[in-house]
């Protein structure tokens, strides 16, 4: 089947889908080559399986669903062939400790962000957020993205990555504290 035969997926539309799929894949995989491959596989699978598209969801949701599977396949292959190095436990724990006093109270108490959802429409904000996610250590970033973006249960994340749930929760806690701190400094604290 070729692209032109499918009314919902003509050439320009494929390009549009391609760009957000690539963005999604890059966030998860942090590797341009791997992201390209996952998107390519997704588009091929979409074309081959287009008759299975029910039309109940948008094409975008449908394609993102296929991409998720491709990303997980890739992560699985990768964790077999070239497992991610563990994040530096000591420096990660220190980074969290630095946010709190020794008695567990905030070193610097989080203030209100007003109506942060307004920022979601701001391209500069999304860039700042992307930078903050890039500052996360590799494994922490992977767990956080699998959880908050791909919406995978922690139990399944643990199985995929061969870590305990406690370890998983610790990494998610660190990721959220770190992203909050980073956004506070680079975005909401500036005015």
């Amino acid at each position: 089947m070729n692209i032109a035969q499918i009314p919902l997926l003509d050439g320009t539309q494929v390009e549009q889908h391609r760009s957000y799929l690539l963005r999604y894949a890059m966030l998860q995989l942090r590797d341009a080559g791997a992201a390209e491959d996952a998107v390519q596989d997704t588009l091929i699978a979409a074309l081959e399986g287009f008759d299975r598209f029910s039309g109940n969801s948008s094409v975008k949701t449908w394609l993102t669903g296929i991409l998720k599977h491709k990303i997980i396949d890739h992560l699985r292959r990768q964790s077999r062939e070239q497992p991610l190095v563990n994040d530096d436990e000591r420096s990660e724990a220190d980074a969290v400790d630095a946010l709190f006093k020794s008695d567990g109270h905030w070193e610097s108490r989080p203030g209100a962000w007003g109506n942060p959802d307004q920022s979601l429409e701001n391209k500069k904000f999304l860039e700042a957020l992307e930078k903050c996610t890039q500052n996360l250590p590799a494994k922490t970033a992977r767990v956080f993205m699998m959880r908050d973006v791909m919406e995978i249960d922690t139990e399944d994340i643990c199985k995929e990555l061969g870590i305990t749930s406690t370890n998983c929760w610790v990494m998610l806690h660190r990721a959220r504290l770190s992203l909050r701190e980073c956004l506070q400094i680079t975005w909401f604290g500036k005015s």
Partner: protein
Amino acid sequence: MRLLSCKETTALVSQGLDRKLSLWERCALRIHLLVCDACRNFVRQSAFIRRAVRRLAGHDDA
């Protein structure tokens, strides 16, 4: 019942996004949040960060 520190509170708030908390945990959390505006901000901000990364990834429903 021992009161939670802010650090412990943020850990539970974070886990609350990933699993169902026990009754005890929810009570302890509620008591802390009642008196701590900084941790209440952390609750809102972690939920916002989740919405924001979904938007970053191009979700329509973020």
